[in-house]
């Protein structure tokens, strides 16, 4: 089945036989198997077949808008439903499931998983888990891709852990010397959200809905189309990282290295970049992709947009 899956992509520039083989043996950990974790569906269709998947939730009927499951999956743990889905598409998939809520008390599990993979996809919506995985990934030097699902934008970036561009360093948390179990996550949260408060991120929610989501009164909003688009972009980012990891040439494109994040606004059809360390905005030339960096217009940043819990 794997051969069938990669057959049609062979010959597209960058998708050499070597890259396909590298994809086939690259081990990926996906932390969080909800809407953004549905990048798994894209990964398996691109030929990835070694996974660690981590999530504590069960499938709810209201998840069927963004997970590729059928109603018979409702009530199953998400990790189990994903394992079935991945192995139905490619029976050779090796899937290690971890039903756990990631946080400060799960460091040993995170270390064990991170130690067994080549790449990480960080797909959780809660802050504490993301912070814990980001630090452990940086310590282990395992590249990590993020693609937080906003209701209306692509946001994709890779942590290559070179030159000290860590989440904690760039975010200015001043927490590097403190053990993960001692941190006050509630106090750090607004700063973390600020990293995602890029310009041009206009809310498209009905009045009051954004505030209700931020107050965790209702779950974050999501629509299938946006999730599918950001996940396609994340999958491509993971492919690029796979090429880099295996020393394969990557022509005419490059990894989007944090603190730079790529934004894409499918509603307006505009693509741009944001540097989380300087707050500058990069406008790509439509032809070459070269980026023209400039200061963001005043007042264009968006306040706390990061929900506490899905």
């Amino acid at each position: 089945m794997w051969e069938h899956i990669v057959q049609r992509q062979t010959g597209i520039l960058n998708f050499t036989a070597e890259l396909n083989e590298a994809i086939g043996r690259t081990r990926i950990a996906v932390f969080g198997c909800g809407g953004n974790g549905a990048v798994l569906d894209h990964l398996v269709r691109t030929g990835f077949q070694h996974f660690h998947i981590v999530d504590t939730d069960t499938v709810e009927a209201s998840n069927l808008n963004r997970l590729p499951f059928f109603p018979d999956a409702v009530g199953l743990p998400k990790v189990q439903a994903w394992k079935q889905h991945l192995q139905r598409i490619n029976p050779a998939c090796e899937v290690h499931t971890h039903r756990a809520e990631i946080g400060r008390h799960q460091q040993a599990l995170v270390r064990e998983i991170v130690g067994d993979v080549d790449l990480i996809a960080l797909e959780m919506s809660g802050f504490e888990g993301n912070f814990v995985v980001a630090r452990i990934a940086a310590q282990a030097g395992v590249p990590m891709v993020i693609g937080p699902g906003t209701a209306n934008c692509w946001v994709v970036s890779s942590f290559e852990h070179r030159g000290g561009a860590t989440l904690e360093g760039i975010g200015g948390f001043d927490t590097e010397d403190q053990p993960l179990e001692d941190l006050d996550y509630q106090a750090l949260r607004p700063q973390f959200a600020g990293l995602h408060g890029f310009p041009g991120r206009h809310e498209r929610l009905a009045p009051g809905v954004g505030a209700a989501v931020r107050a965790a009164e209702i779950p974050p909003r999501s629509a299938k189309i946006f999730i599918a688009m950001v996940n396609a972009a994340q999958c491509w980012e993971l492919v690029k990282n796979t090429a880099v990891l295996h020393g394969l040439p990557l022509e005419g494109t490059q990894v989007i290295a944090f603190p730079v994040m790529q934004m894409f606004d499918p509603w307006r059809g505009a693509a741009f970049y944001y540097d989380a360390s300087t707050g500058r905005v990069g406008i790509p030339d439509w032809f070459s992709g070269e980026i023209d960096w400039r200061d963001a217009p005043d007042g264009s940043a968006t306040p706390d947009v990061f929900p506490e819990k899905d």
Partner: protein
Amino acid sequence: MPAWSEIVDRQTGLLSPAQNRALRDTRVLMLGVGGMGMNAAANLVRMGFQRFTLIDCDIVDGTTANRTPFAFEDTLGLQKVEATRRYLLAVNPACSVTIHPDMRFGLESDPIFMERLLAEHDLVSWAMDGMAGRLYFTRIAHRVGSLRAGGIPAVESWALPYHHCVQTVPNRADTPSWEACFGLPSAALPMEVIDAGVVRDTQLAFFWTLACTPRLWEDFDPELVERWVGLRMPNRSLGSAVVGCGALIASELLANALQVAGLPLPNLAIHEAPWMAIQDLRRQVSYELNYATRRLRWRHPITLELHEQDAP
């Protein structure tokens, strides 16, 4: 069993309850449910669309493994319309799905049937191969749509490996036909004189028009281009890109469905032909291209100003 209301639950707030109901009541005619069409359908049903008519006479075969929303073994050997129907009903049993598994479109097809079919639908997803069927459909859609106040929007999309392209042909009295949008020579010819020779020439002209998509050829291995142009191998496709394009089609259909219902969403653009919206995944840029005039435009992401220039 999840009810329709649970499927749309999490998008409420992005869309209003009235907009959700408009999606539920929109009648979508899907011409072609291969990789693109079937993925578009999968996106639509998970956004609350519930009324579908599916047309395709192909069978699911082994080459679609990388891009069908179903697991491959479940659908191998089924008609594509049947596989898609099962998918839609599995997600939402309240769907009403009409299938036409034997319908082929060509110059000799019955235009009365197509006119009747179009009259019963609000919008069209166009994801079908073959130029004869394309000429047949686009001409009738333009004729029928010209008589309807809002036209009959038809959405089409291409997944050219790294270039994701989507547009709406509005099919209103005041908008150009599909052929005119691409500057195809056949646009000037009446239907009576279109024969197999014209179809072949039009197919070739269309191929070379698409081939002018900026930097498209750089995305292929050169040796592969030669074999592909010589038709010695099937199209290349990235599974993830096809799934992403399915979302693009669905997004464009969403914008049109809300427009048709009189409940448009502010800021959700309809990419109206002759402007084709293009996302270049490899260079990570986005722009619009007019294939007939070879003009190109792009929007500044912050100021939203439009810049226009000749395509290279």
